[in-house]
């Protein structure tokens, strides 16, 4: 024994085996282990879509997260943040799909989504990224590169990831961009024609004025209590205080709140308000019948229409049955379509006209085929009611979003890291020849574009020729979450030569990519943000909590390094480092908020904001509350001077401009049009009788935080995404609460966990969007194991006007799943099927 050990040591030391042993992974520590001082930790401030927070960092680790003191209504999703940072789904290293690495543009693309990856060094990964950009610009042209997609990113004005990616790629060459988004695609296109602005992202009438003046508040397909948990910037949750007051007013009867919705929503249950059920996707028919009532019972305001609107006559002729279809839009006509009694329709119209009424529309309703129509029709109803521009009257399309309705402080918010190339600079490849194809496409038609290059479509009055895209770059954007009909996407992805994704978690988009670069979370970098996207309540410091985990890097670092490959890294970052940018954006904000001092003897400009060092130490600057404000009041007060942005400057009940486009799916005034598929007696309901609504989730931000085990434990059913189903439909199918079910239609199939709930009527089921896609394999039609509703949804444009997503036009059937269920693959992978 001794002899062989000694001879091993002599042999091993002398021979080459010893050098198979590396130098090790440890270094000696210059600092002796600290005692109690390190143990106490340090409290830091940061923010997120879910709100501001204080975090205790001990020993280089986030130990505890507490809601920010100023936040009176923190969301429970804050509990998911620690799990987000340390989540097993974190992307830890740059990785490349092996098949793509070997064969690049000639690789087998049918195995995307179910592939083996290898690790790369950052240098190798960025070299490849640069090479592919070069190849695409050189062998093809700007028409072949799609880098326009954006998503909800993480918060922070310096590190806004879409800006970093698009600036860097734009410095290299031109590329195909997109117009629109998945949130409000139809709404933001139609409303400028009708009310003169996109409306959906605009500040709205202040809540105090609604609470004080409205007698009736209508939540039209709107669930603010659920949706206000998250915000575009650091969410303040200020709206919740007003929802509390609204709840009290419902209780004491001073305000009637009516939720027009087939489902009893979270807001409905919170407020204890009334519900008006109607069949899914029939709101326009319902509203037309209301218009008929208002007109024929002379409950509408002709004076308001005369002073502020155009196009009423053509519209009302249609309503009266004097249009081409000869069908009067009476409540009797609407009743069988909507599933609402004719008299109930009349009563509702009378109620809204009786006193001050505030209409609050949600966004999900315009995410259906012909989604322009319910928004247009809502504006027409509001016009007929004549209360637009009055406190607590009129219509809003955003009170459920990022605390719109909380008065704005009037302060300027910090700017952001630039998205574009600096003025006077040109890209490396300054080729703007898109070869007759569009350089901008409607965002939700990108899969059509991949499948049918060269095809011509109509969009918002113009012709768009689809470019022949070969390469895509996605940064903090998860199209495999938000786009419809995943099986169709699988087909389209076979077209792509190169897909580069920058993200921090292994979501489905990463698994369908060729090159995956790990960004760090917002908690691993320094930044600043506006506190309150619309209230502009303050400016929040976002202290880095811990260093980037594993080999992840900030987007700032990643793209600086990419630009180094073509010698323009200094230009990219304008010679500033991260803290340089934080300070620059803060100082510029401070400058913008400068005013003449009211202090005695002061006519020097001063700012209420402290210097940067003080701000960074204290973590927050408060601008104080804002003043109440009424949307459209200035227009109402002086319509000529404060004209709307419509072609005429007035509200356009009928639009000549849209009429000239001659789109049969979006005509000169709101019309009722049957959908491609619809439940409750509509097309396709004989085979697929259930309407699938895919609303924004209650315990995620879209797909963000789906990876949190702690949060999923509070809602998943048998490890799958829940599907909410009413007791009648469940019983008819032998489904019990907690059962595993297969949900399917002609487009796909998925597994989900049944939650039987009284909140859901017959014919309506719900799967919340953002559920991570995890198919059993790369085949078209493969069963999704976790329950992503976009496995089943329809991929058509809302109409030729907006070409927006139609996710909520979707019918399905459900059955109890029998037998051995495949394991959930959404949170694991890439997986190897066979060698």
């Amino acid at each position, binding site marked *: *024994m*001794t002899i*062989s*050990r*000694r001879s*091993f*040591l002599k*042999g*091993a030391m002398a*021979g*080459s*085996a*010893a050098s*198979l*042993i*590396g130098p*090790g*992974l*440890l*270094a*000696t*520590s210059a600092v*002796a*282990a600290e005692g109690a001082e390190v143990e106490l930790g340090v409290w830091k401030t940061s923010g997120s879509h879910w709100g501001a927070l204080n975090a205790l960092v001990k*020993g280089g*680790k986030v130990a505890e997260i507490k809601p920010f003191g100023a936040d009176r209504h923190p969301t429970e999703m804050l509990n998911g943040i*620690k*799990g987000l940072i*340390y*989540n*097993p*789904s*974190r*992307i*830890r*290293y740059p*990785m490349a799909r*092996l098949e793509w*690495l*070997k064969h690049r543009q000639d690789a087998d693309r049918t195995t995307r989504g179910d592939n*083996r*990856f*290898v*690790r790369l060094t950052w240098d190798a990964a960025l070299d490849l990224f640069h090479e592919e950009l070069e190849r695409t610009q050189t062998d093809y042209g700007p028409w072949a590169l799609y880098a326009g997609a954006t998503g909800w990113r993480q918060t922070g004005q310096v590190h806004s990831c879409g800006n970093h990616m698009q600036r860097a790629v734009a410095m290299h060459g031109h590329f195909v961009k997109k117009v629109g988004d998945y949130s409000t695609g139809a709404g933001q296109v139609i409303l400028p024609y009708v009310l003169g602005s996109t409306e959906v992202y605009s500040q709205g009438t202040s809540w105090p004025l609604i609470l004080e003046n409205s007698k009736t508040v209508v939540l039209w397909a709107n669930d603010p209590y659920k949706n206000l948990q998250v915000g575009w910037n650091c969410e303040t949750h200020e709206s919740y205080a007003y929802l509390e007051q609204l709840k009290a007013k419902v209780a004491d009867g001073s305000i009637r709140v009516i939720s027009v919705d087939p489902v009893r929503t979270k807001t409905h249950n919170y407020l204890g308000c009334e519900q008006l059920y109607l069949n899914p996707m029939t709101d326009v028919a319902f509203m037309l019948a209301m218009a008929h009532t208002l007109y024929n019972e002379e409950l509408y305001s002709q004076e308001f229409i005369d002073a502020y609107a155009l196009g009423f006559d053509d519209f009302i002729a249609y309503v009266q049955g004097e249009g081409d279809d000869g069908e009067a839009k009476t409540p009797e006509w609407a009743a069988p379509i909507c599933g609402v009694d004719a008299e109930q329709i009349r009563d509702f119209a009378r109620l809204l006209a009786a006193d001050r009424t505030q209409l609050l529309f949600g966004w999900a309703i315009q995410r259906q085929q012909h989604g322009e129509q319910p928004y247009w029709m809502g504006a027409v109803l509001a016009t007929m009611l004549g209360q637009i521009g009055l406190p607590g009257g009129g219509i809003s399309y955003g009170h459920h979003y990022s605390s719109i309705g909380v008065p704005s402080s009037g302060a300027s918010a910090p700017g952001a890291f630039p998205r574009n190339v600096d003025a006077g600079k040109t890209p490396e490849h300054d080729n703007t020849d898109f070869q007759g194809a569009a350089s901008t496409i409607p965002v939700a038609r990108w899969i059509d574009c991949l499948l049918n290059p060269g095809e011509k479509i109509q969009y918002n009055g113009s012709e768009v020729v689809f470019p022949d895209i070969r390469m895509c770059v996605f940064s903090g954007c998860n199209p495999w979450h938000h786009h419809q009909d995943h099986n169709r996407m699988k087909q389209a992805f076979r077209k792509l030569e190169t897909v580069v994704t920058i993200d921090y978690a*292994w979501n489905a988009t990463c698994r369908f990519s060729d090159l995956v670069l790990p960004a760090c979370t917002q908690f691993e970098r320094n930044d600043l943000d506006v506190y309150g996207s619309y209230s502009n309540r303050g400016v929040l410091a976002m202290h880095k909590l811990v260093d980037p*985990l*594993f*080999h992840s890097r900030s987007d700032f670092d990643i793209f600086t390094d990419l630009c180094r490959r073509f010698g323009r890294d200094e230009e990219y970052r304008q010679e500033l480092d991260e803290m340089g940018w934080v300070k620059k954006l803060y100082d510029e904000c401070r400058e913008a908020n400068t005013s003449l001092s009211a202090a005695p003897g002061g006519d020097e400009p001063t700012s209420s904001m402290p210097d940067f060092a003080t701000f960074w130490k204290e973590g927050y600057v408060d601008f104080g509350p804002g003043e109440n404000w009424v949307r459209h009041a200035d227009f109402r007060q002086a319509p000529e001077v404060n004209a709307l942005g419509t072609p005429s400057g007035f509200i356009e009940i009928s639009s000549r401009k849209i009429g000239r486009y001659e789109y049969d799916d979006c005509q000169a005034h709101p019309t009722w049009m049957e959908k491609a598929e619809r439940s409750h007696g509509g097309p396709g309901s004989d085979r697929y009788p259930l309407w699938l609504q895919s609303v924004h989730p209650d315990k995620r931000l879209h797909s963000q935080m789906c990876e949190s*085990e*702690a949060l999923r434990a509070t809602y998943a059913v048998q490890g799958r995404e829940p599907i909410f189903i009413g007791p009648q439909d469940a019983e008819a199918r032998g489904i019990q609460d907690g059962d595993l079910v297969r949900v399917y239609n002609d487009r796909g199939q998925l597994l989900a966990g049944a939650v039987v709930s009284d909140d859901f009527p017959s014919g309506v089921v719900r799967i919340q969007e953002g559920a991570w896609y995890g198919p059993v394999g790369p085949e078209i039609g493969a069963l999704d194991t976790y329950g992503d509703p976009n496995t089943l949804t329809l991929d058509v444009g809302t109409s030729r006007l907006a070409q927006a997503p139609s996710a909520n036009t979707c019918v399905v059937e459900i059955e109890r799943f029998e037998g051995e269920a495949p394991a959930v*693959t959404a*949170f*694991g*992978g*890439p*997986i*190897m*099927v*066979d*060698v």
Partner: protein
Amino acid sequence: MSQQTTPAPSEQTAEPADWSAIWESESLLCGWLATLLSAELDEATLARYRRGEARPLLNLLRDEHGLVDEVARVDRALSKLVMFTTPQLELAADFAELFLADARSGAPPYASLYADEAGCFHGAPAERMEARLAQAGYVVRRDVGEPADHLAIMLDYLARRLLNLSEAKGGEGEALRLDTRAFLTEELCPWLPRFVARSAAPTTASDLYPAVLALTVAYLETLSEAL
């Protein structure tokens, strides 16, 4: 002091055990396994393995530790590499699939993912490991970019303790031996069986890494008995 439970077949006379040599050689074995599990093999290093340069290490494991089957499995896996056109890439993909990709699949080698109910990175096992390292005067090298509960880091630490043990005398050596055994039995061995079970789930192209894992776990068992 305990003796090895599997005496070498070649043992002839009862010579006093040369524990210094034993611990030093164990240190090399740990260091070697740490290296194998810390990063993919590049072309040059893979070629050396295929030429048999790891033979002394494998022989020691086979003969002195009795790990005949485990070593044979590694040998077989190495010889079968001849079937691949790009063995280095395939092994890198295997390594990635097991250890580097989404940590919910494969067998990511972090104690926190197995020992902790929460199953997240940087859990209590990582904190304990950091404290251990600090007490011994080490930190994880910054460029490594891994939490301290990575198996390779734990093996590296073990290797250094064994080297210290080979040089230690008397009471100090005894304390070190006990502490090293405690480390093995409390911090490493508890999660390794689950880790190896996880590694069986993906279908790797080559059996090499699964074989190395099996070898590592079996070896550590014999080591804990020896300590």
